[in-house]
């Protein structure tokens, strides 16, 4: 118990902070912060597996998040029959062509000696392949995008419950990580960082501009929910009764029957959105707890010890007969898959998929701040990092607003500098994050909750 005191203390403080937001601002804000904290926690767990367990640097988190989001769209949206009839055949042909191309390249790689001729012929094959694929796909894509472009204009998905996409998102992200890992994992750390960052940008470019698959920057809205809709709740009897019961004290003060009914309606509207958010919190909490148990088990298993050995001394681990390349690839895939789950969860919560909103600041670098601040190598630390950093990211604006007003209290409202500062309040969050990261790296390089390895 004693040795876990700092963990318990840190989490209690975090919970109190969120509760304070609930009491002083509103429960709606508190819950939406809490939900995004949970999603961030899943992302940090993924990054932490790669960085903390194995020392692999992955700046491509944004790409895996977006793939998870794409999975949510492809799973939950109903298929657009008309689009399939119009261009489905061309698209399937293309898929075949890609598979054939990959197989041919594999065949060449396997059966011919390494030579200049081989390299050039593979390059020529890829270029002609791309041209052929473009020529085959072009008419199909045009037809698909012409099908009712205001609402569909894409192939749609499978029409399954969106929850399944959490698993599919993990598979997508893991698949991409397999390719990236095969290609890039041999690079030195900072090159790996740049390579993964750029590959994630390529992924985003594809998701943004292949309208037939994702609707691109036109966004997909109104995804199905795993939770009830507010509008339905507001007309359901048991929910209204529940709200009445909860607020009976408040309501009994009002004498006028009409006023009481109006107050109740207001409470029901507020309550319904809180209830929906609570549903999401429950779902996300389940995911976080399952992942936490799995990652903790993995950390203290022989496999976890091997990963740490590889991280701390690659050559020695190699000499002991551990397959470093294979383990690196495995952990790269596992971590990315977890990030993919988080991506699907994020889209599930928002109910919309906006490829334009995937930006490296928010989805890659912020997650890294979380991992570093929380404590790399420690799962509890990573989750805490997700909570703390997301909380500050949201609450930075009110905090800095308060500070600005506090320090410039004597200056009149019309002062140009004060007005300018108040106008630029949203950007103080970047300052806060940057300073936080720099201070933690300087004075507590292992994070708030440092990695702790017990030898039992």
């Amino acid at each position: 118990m004693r040795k876990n005191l700092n963990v318990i203390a840190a989490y209690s403080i975090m919970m109190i902070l969120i509760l304070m937001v609930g009491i002083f601002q509103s429960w709606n804000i508190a819950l939406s912060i809490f939900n995004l904290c949970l999603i961030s926690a899943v992302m940090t767990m993924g990054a932490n597996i790669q960085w903390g367990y194995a020392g692999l640097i992955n700046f491509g988190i944004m790409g895996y998040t977006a793939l998870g989001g794409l999975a949510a769209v492809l799973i939950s949206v109903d298929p657009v029959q008309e689009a399939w009839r119009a261009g489905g055949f061309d698209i399937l042909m293309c898929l075949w062509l890609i598979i054939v191309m990959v197989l041919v390249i594999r065949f060449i790689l396997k059966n011919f000696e390494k030579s200049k001729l081989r390299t050039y012929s593979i390059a020529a094959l890829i270029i002609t392949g791309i041209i052929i694929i473009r020529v085959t796909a072009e008419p199909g894509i045009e037809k698909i995008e012409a099908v009712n472009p205001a609402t569909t204009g894409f192939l749609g998905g499978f029409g399954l419950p969106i929850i399944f996409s959490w698993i599919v998102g993990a598979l997508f992200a893991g698949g991409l990580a397999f390719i990236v890992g095969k290609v890039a994992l041999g690079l030195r750390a900072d090159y790996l960082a740049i390579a993964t960052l750029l590959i994630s940008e390529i992924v985003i470019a594809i998701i943004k501009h292949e309208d037939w698959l994702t609707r691109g920057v036109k966004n997909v809205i109104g995804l199905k929910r795993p939770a009830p809709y507010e509008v339905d709740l507001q007309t359901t009897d048991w929910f209204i009764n529940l709200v009445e019961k909860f607020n009976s004290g408040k309501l009994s003060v009002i004498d006028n029957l009409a006023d009481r009914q109006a107050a109740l309606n207001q409470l029901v509207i507020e309550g319904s959105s809180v209830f929906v958010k609570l549903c999401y919190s429950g779902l996300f909490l389940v995911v976080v707890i399952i992942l936490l148990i799995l990652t903790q088990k993995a950390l203290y298993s022989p496999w976890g010890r091997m990963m740490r050995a590889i991280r701390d001394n690659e050559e020695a681990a190699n000499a002991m007969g551990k397959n470093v390349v294979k383990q690196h690839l495995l952990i790269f895939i596992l971590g990315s898959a977890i990030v993919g789950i988080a991506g699907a969860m994020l889209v599930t919560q928002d109910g919309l998929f906006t490829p334009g909103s995937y930006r490296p600041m928010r989805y890659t670098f912020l997650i890294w701040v979380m991992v570093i601040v929380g404590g790399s190598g420690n799962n509890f630390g990573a989750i805490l990092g997700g909570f703390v950093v997301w909380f500050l990211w949201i609450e930075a604006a009110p905090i800095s607003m308060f500070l600005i007003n506090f320090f410039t209290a004597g200056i009149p409202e019309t002062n140009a500098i004060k007005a300018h500062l108040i106008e630029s309040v949203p950007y103080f969050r970047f300052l806060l994050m940057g300073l936080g990261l720099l201070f933690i790296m300087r004075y507590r390089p292992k994070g708030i909750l440092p990695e702790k390895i017990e030898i039992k």
Partner: protein
Amino acid sequence: MDFVNAIILLLNYIFIPALTYGSQLALGAIFVTLIYGILRFANFATGDMMSFGTMATILFTWYFQSLGVSLGVLPTALLAIPFGIILMILYMLLIDKFVFKYYRHQKSPPVQFAMVSIGVMFVTQAVVRIIIGPSDRRFFDGEKFIIKAREFKEMTGLNEGLALKSTQVITIFVTIVLVSLLFWFLNRTKTGKSMKAYSDNEDLALLSGIDPKKIVLVTWVIAGILATIGGVLYGLDKSFKPFTYFNNMLPIFAAAIVGGIGNPFGAFLGGYVIAFSEILLTYAYKKFFIYILPESMEPNSLVQLLSTDYKFAVSFSILVIVLIYRPSGIFKGKVL
């Protein structure tokens, strides 16, 4: 005549824009490569440092404009650049003193430096946005075109017009001057040579009495000059928006690595490699083929290898390919 038209078309839509964009990238790439070669880390704050320098220059430009000072046909920003550079260098030295110096003395691994530079990136972004705001700004004044497309058509009687913007000429001219000065400095002066020695082998350089503090100082000064001028040229040619500058970091990294990181000349060429391949691969050649092919063979489609949406993706793919097959870059930089 058709042949000349085709050449003019390529000049107008591919060669000149690519040369301009390449010059802007090249300056940034030399900045990245110098920091990497001498201070030994990948600076993720590159784009934001450039936007800081540009912001400083814009502030001085506004000041000069309010005073009524101008350079006539040339943009006022050229007058403000030296002041912008001074602010930029001061900012960089401040950051170095409070942030990077500690890790340099600790001899931290490059990854840690990269992480720290992300912290610097956040802070710099905040500073720029707080001071000047995140919106799109144009600060170009003076004469916009040297040759207008219409005038060119009238002058030569060709179908295709050649438009030459003054920012393009300024960019290319300034880049040539700056880069030749830089190479002269690196190859001919004592300080430049000692910088090279320090980059090659730190311990040997220290043994032979090179002062590391001076090397670091000179590196930041050169970096400040490159970052500010590169940023201002980009801003003059297109526009200044902090977010775009952050994004520009990626092709700049690509240029530096393609050229062989740590090798300034490679970075210079890498800028053009990236710029030309981006534009060559995403240009629609339909009109070009209409000019040079006989009428019966004219293409129906756009004859475009990749849609322009994938401009960035092209440079990143080149980088990934180079990283995999030739990690030291096309022009041999530091071996990994």
